[in-house]
């Protein structure tokens, strides 16, 4: 036992002697497999930030060390996070596309006392796994509960039918939207869940059509599915004037819009970021992003990575380069800034992301299908986090 501690201490000392001038950020990402695209976009977002703002902060050089987790594999994510801490001596853990991976890494962040930035994983409880963790992406309750409330009030919708994918984020969205929608006076016509690997939606869409609800709420992951669903809806003749179609931002992402074509018109979505936003910061971001990523446009994975790096940079500036987790988390709490997505803040109590939620409708602008923002709910806090706080305060 003692020998190992000495070996480790020597390694750390040697490592840190070199690391005096470098801040190492370890990023376990799902670079291969089903979620490879999300990780690639996230990494490109981070790299774009570094390109735009230089790779030196508070006198130290920033170094990214990426590892492949391969998919939802918390055992691998935990091991890689541990190895990054123990072997590569990283100062900060960042990235984490998927919830189970972020949860497992949270343990490492808490035990090894390392500042951790979650750049995507969107399940609310993730933030509770470590006191040194912040999140710069989004939480599903944040968007979906807001959407549910909006739909029943300003949206003027009285009834809805939910169709979500049968997995964690799908269940969370269904619960969040339904509870908020009902609380604001709406009623539910029913709910259905798609299997995760579902190539064909026509049967489900036909069922929805037969029920004939006033609105349909959809949550499906990005990739091939939104387009397939959009096509199924067009094929079945869902008239969006009669049946309002509500969705999460992934439903009308770039690839989905391209594939759905005009069948996407009039879909209403709630989300925190769109690459076509005319916000000046965003226009500059997209331009740099196109250069870094060989012509691709950013998506919400990219902005999570971009803002994650921003949070790291600003925190380091505040701590003057000190990477001690206590110092960093103290500096990160309450951090406020203007991002290409709009205004953002790290909640000083829950350490979670606070941002605008935009309500958008797909319309043709200058001949191109665009998510046009027509309503904004400003600076929304994660409602699930708020409820946890209230429950804890009551005790």
């Amino acid at each position, binding site marked *: 036992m003692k020998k190992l501690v000495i070996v*480790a201490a020597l390694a750390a000392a040697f490592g840190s002697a070199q690391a005096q001038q470098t801040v190492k950020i370890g990023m376990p990402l799902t*670079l291969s497999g089903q979620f490879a695209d999300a990780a690639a976009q996230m990494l490109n977002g981070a790299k774009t930030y570094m390109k735009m703002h230089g790779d030196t902060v508070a006198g130290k050089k920033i170094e990214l060390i*990426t590892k492949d987790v391969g998919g939802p594999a918390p*055992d691998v994510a935990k091991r890689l996070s541990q190895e990054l801490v123990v072997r590569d001596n990283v100062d900060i853990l960042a990235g984490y596309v998927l919830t189970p991976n972020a949860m497992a890494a949270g*343990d490492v962040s808490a035990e090894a006392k390392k500042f951790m930035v979650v750049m995507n994983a969107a399940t609310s409880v993730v933030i509770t796994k470590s006191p040194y963790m912040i999140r710069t992406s989004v939480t599903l309750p944040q968007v979906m509960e807001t959407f549910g409330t909006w739909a029943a009030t300003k949206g003027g919708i009285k009834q809805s039918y939910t169709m979500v994918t049968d997995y*964690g984020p799908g269940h969370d969205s269904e619960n969040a939207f339904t509870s908020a929608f009902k609380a604001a006076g709406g009623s539910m016509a029913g709910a259905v869940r798609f299997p995760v690997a579902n190539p064909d939606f026509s049967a489900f869409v036909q069922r929805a059509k037969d029920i004939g609800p006033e609105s349909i709420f959809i949550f499906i992951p990005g990739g091939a599915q939104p387009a397939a669903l959009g096509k199924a809806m067009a094929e079945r003749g869902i008239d969006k004037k009669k049946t309002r179609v509500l969705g999460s931002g992934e439903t009308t992402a770039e690839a989905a819009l391209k594939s759905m074509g005009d069948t996407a018109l009039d879909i209403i979505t709630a989300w925190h970021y769109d690459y076509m936003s005319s916000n000046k910061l965003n226009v500059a971001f997209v331009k740099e992003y196109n250069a870094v990523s060989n012509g691709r446009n950013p998506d919400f994975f990219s902005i999570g990575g971009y803002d994650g790096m921003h949070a790291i940079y600003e925190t380091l500036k505040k701590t003057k380069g000190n990477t001690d987790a206590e110092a960093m988390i103290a500096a990160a709490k309450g951090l406020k800034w203007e991002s290409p997505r709009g205004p953002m803040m790290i909640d000083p109590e829950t350490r979670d992301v606070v941002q605008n939620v935009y309500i958008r409708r797909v319309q043709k602008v200058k001949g191109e299908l665009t998510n046009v923002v027509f309503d904004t709910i400003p600076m929304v806090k994660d409602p699930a986090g708020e409820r946890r706080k209230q429950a804890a305060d009551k005790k």
Partner: protein
Amino acid sequence: MANARRFEVAFWLCTLLPFVLAPSYLSLASQIAITALFALSLDLILGYAGIVSLGHAAFFGVGAYAAGLIAKNYWSEPLSALLVSGFAAGVLGYALSHIIVRFRHLALIMLTMGFGLLLHEAFNSASAITGGADGLQGFRVPDVLGFKFDMFGRTAYAYSLAVLFVCFLICRRIIHSPFGLALRGIRENATRMPAIGAPSLSHLRKAYTIAALMAGVAGALLTQTTSTVSLDVLSFGRSADVLVILILGGAGRLYGGLIGAVIYMVARDQFSGMNPQYWYFWIGLLLVAVVMFLPNGILGGLSALDKKRQ
């Protein structure tokens, strides 16, 4: 024979080397040991009884979730939980074995795959109990026999290695017993065995149950050493991976699964470290190379080379 013994002793002594030579790789070593145990359990039915299974992760997963649920809801002592989890997987294996052993060839492979996929779906749907895609949360296995599970993975590796060794000895006993010989007989010629009075179906069922139990132990080990468990322990990918590993090492040679696990996982770790986005390419190349130059897996190829020399 003495030669073989020497290699075996050397092999097991080498498994202790990571403690000294690669202390920062012990978490990886622990996961290799667990995978080796999983592959060994598959070898029992594939290499020795001739049952090709594309759904062996079902038992791995049941053991893993059992260990997690025990730690979450009942008690946190790992060794007893390990035995209970293995037993749970064994029970499932026993139940399924009644169906499995009646089939051969492609139908057998697809049935094992089908059961694996069905179980995966079932665990996904029962998300109230299993946590679904987010994984089982809210449990910890802090230590085993008083040794804390540390960040370096020392305790994890020692624990996994010890369990692997014990299970290996048990496997060896089984293989060399009359039961094991009967299994090999069934593998060689299934039609002849009943003719000489060996009840083959019950033998196969027994083997399948033992293999399931062992796979469940491996799964439980993973849960306990990482304090995490999520749906990927039941995935088709995990079943396919362990099959690839066993074929790579050489099925039916007792050490094939262990060698395969070491080679595959070290290669994967190194390749993905060098090239996180495209390491699939190098792993694929490795597999193709092994097949072209070392038929019947690494151990098979080595023994063929050995025979050529003699």
